[in-house]
């Protein structure tokens, strides 16, 4: 795989990258022609059988899932689905799912556990839908329950952020053994517009917020928050969907086979060590300092922190 990456780099070395700054990546990640979850699912798997509904309330078209063949194995796939035009976007609720969408995901992940199917998820959402009906149906609980389920799900989970990774709504389908991002994808605690409104008190500062919040794939790989970056065709994923699928296939397969070799091929003990590794992966994330017993004057804190940059 690195060889192929090298080949691609060599071939495209004179071309300008699709996006340089964080804000350009945000725009590219939201590009309407960018491959969406169903494009990846149909492009990467065979015999996709969509499974719909949460068995409680309804079906949410903003979050899709089902079973499919991925390179000779049956897998469970999940993804946030955006639309390409107004009509489709209304049907897909702009890729922002409600509680029933996340409960469908929950049901399907339990299905995966039952039949020992690896889980592949394609993350592309501005966030869970902040509407009246979301609150009435317990969106917070639905997200929380997914996060808990995924943290202990006894099958390998590989997630790719393909476009926008928006906050809790993205996290609730991407607690994974391997969390990958496409080269031009972004993943953030709040959208740049939201961050700008909160911290700059000015929504027009979204580009500055995008930079400051460190939401790009290289930033997050550097922090140890994601596990890998999936390169895109030079002009961006939408300029060459076929090549994008070929690259995504390599990366998904590599990560999945690695998890299978390391863990699931080794029976119950292997699965336990996979869960332990997954726990430790998240356990490590953070940045903190231990103050000396005698609390220093507040003025000195900055100096101490500067002297001991964590991570």
């Amino acid at each position, binding site marked *: 795989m690195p060889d192929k990456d090298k080949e691609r780099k060599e071939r495209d070395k004179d071309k300008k990258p699709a996006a340089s700054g964080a804000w350009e990546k945000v725009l590219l990640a939201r590009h309407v022609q960018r491959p969406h979850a169903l494009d990846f699912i149909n492009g990467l798997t065979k015999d996709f059988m969509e499974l719909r509904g949460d068995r409680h309330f309804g079906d949410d078209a903003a979050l899709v899932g089902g079973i499919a063949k991925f390179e000779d194995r049956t897998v469970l796939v999940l993804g946030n689905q955006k639309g390409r035009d107004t009509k489709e976007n209304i049907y897909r609720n702009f890729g922002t799912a409600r509680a029933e969408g996340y409960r469908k995901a929950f049901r399907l992940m339990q299905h995966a556990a039952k039949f020992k199917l690896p889980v592949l998820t394609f993350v592309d959402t501005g*966030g869970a839908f*902040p*509407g*009246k009906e979301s*609150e*009435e149906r317990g969106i*917070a*609980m639905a*997200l*929380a*329950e997914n*996060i*808990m389920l995924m*943290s*202990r799900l006894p099958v390998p989970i590989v997630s790719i952020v393909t476009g926008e990774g*928006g*906050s*809790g*709504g993205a*996290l*609730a389908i991407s*607690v994974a053994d391997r969390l990958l991002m496409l080269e031009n994808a972004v993943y*953030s*605690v*709040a*959208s740049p517009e*939201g*961050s700008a*409104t*909160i*911290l*700059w*008190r000015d929504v027009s500062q979204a580009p*500055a917020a995008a930079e*400051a*919040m*460190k*939401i790009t794939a290289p930033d997050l790989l550097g*922090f140890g*928050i994601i596990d890998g970056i999936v390169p895109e065709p030079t002009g961006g994923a939408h300029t060459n969907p076929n090549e994008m699928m070929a690259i995504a296939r390599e990366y998904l397969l590599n990560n999945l086979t690695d998890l299978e070799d390391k863990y699931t091929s080794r029976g119950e003990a292997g699965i336990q060590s996979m869960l332990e590794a997954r*726990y430790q992966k*998240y*356990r490590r*994330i*953070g*940045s*903190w*300092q*231990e*103050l000396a*017993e005698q*609390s220093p004057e*507040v*003025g000195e*804190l*900055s100096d101490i*922190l*500067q002297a001991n*940059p*964590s991570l």
Partner: protein
Amino acid sequence: MEKLFKRIPRVGGESEKERLEGSSEGTIEPQHKAQAESVEKTPEISPEKAKKHEGHTPKFSWSIKPQGDQKAKPARSGKDEIPDGLWIKCAHCKELIYSKEFENNKKVCPKCGFHFRLGAYERVNVILDESSFEEINANLVTGDPLNFTTSTETYQVKSDQTRAKTGLNEAIVTGFGTLEGMPLALAVCDFNYLGGSMGSVYGEKLVRLVEQALERRVPLLAVSASGGARMHEGMFSLMQMAKTTAAFACLGEAGLPFISLLVDPCTGGVIASYASVADVILAEPGALLGFAGPRVIEQVTKQKLPPGFQTSEFFLEHGMVDQVVNRKELRPVIAKLLRLYETVVAQNEAREREVSYAG
């Protein structure tokens, strides 16, 4: 933590304002229209004037304001309406309350039952047996993983100021104590510290508490009042949702009960993670609870929210919490739960021991 959270100015005296300046940064500051509107009518208080006021302001004045009631018109300026240190005016029902009575009543208005917010240590005292609390990891303070700077501030300076202002090292206080003599691990979130937002230290302290509770085999109670994930730490904050929830999953696997108490206000990343995966979820009356703040919902969907939307009572009605419990009933209710689980915990412990001997 969603894209949509907007900073909204709040009502109150100068120190109140300062406090909230801090708390609303980077998190959801759930607000109701009535409060937001009356802000415009609130005269600016100069720092000098505010200082002068401090001399005769009762120490608890910070909490004299309504929360979680859409109809309540808050006091224009909390402090001015307090005649002296002995009497305070409930901004919810406007009745005068003798301050001792207010304190004895655990900051619940004796006239109308309105529950005012509590700081973390006040909360510890309300719940645990007297002086039984042993805090752990009190000296953990945040790093600045993003090296975060906006045009007007840095996270480091903000953290230093918040520590000085609140006397807290972080938005969560963790430790062990007893309730009616029964051991309990306790985590209490303090909304005064950057809106109770969850960043790296919050997550780390909580996970360490869970891990110690696992070792000691004691039940855990988490009291959450939080605006969500802390913006200043970006994705580090979002990942604390997974980190903490995973730890609670392990607590559950070990057969140890987890009780979550939601208090005013709890929205965003905390209620969308560990706080909602408890075995028993309780809420205090009238608390604002929800995923997105009400203003955000109104902005995004252009829907007008009905009165009482996203309150504890709304959560109860929609099946999201087990019970709404008055503050004065908290100790007996939690004690009852602990007694109900006591034998279960012991059985699970015996079973675990057998398994480990057999293995």
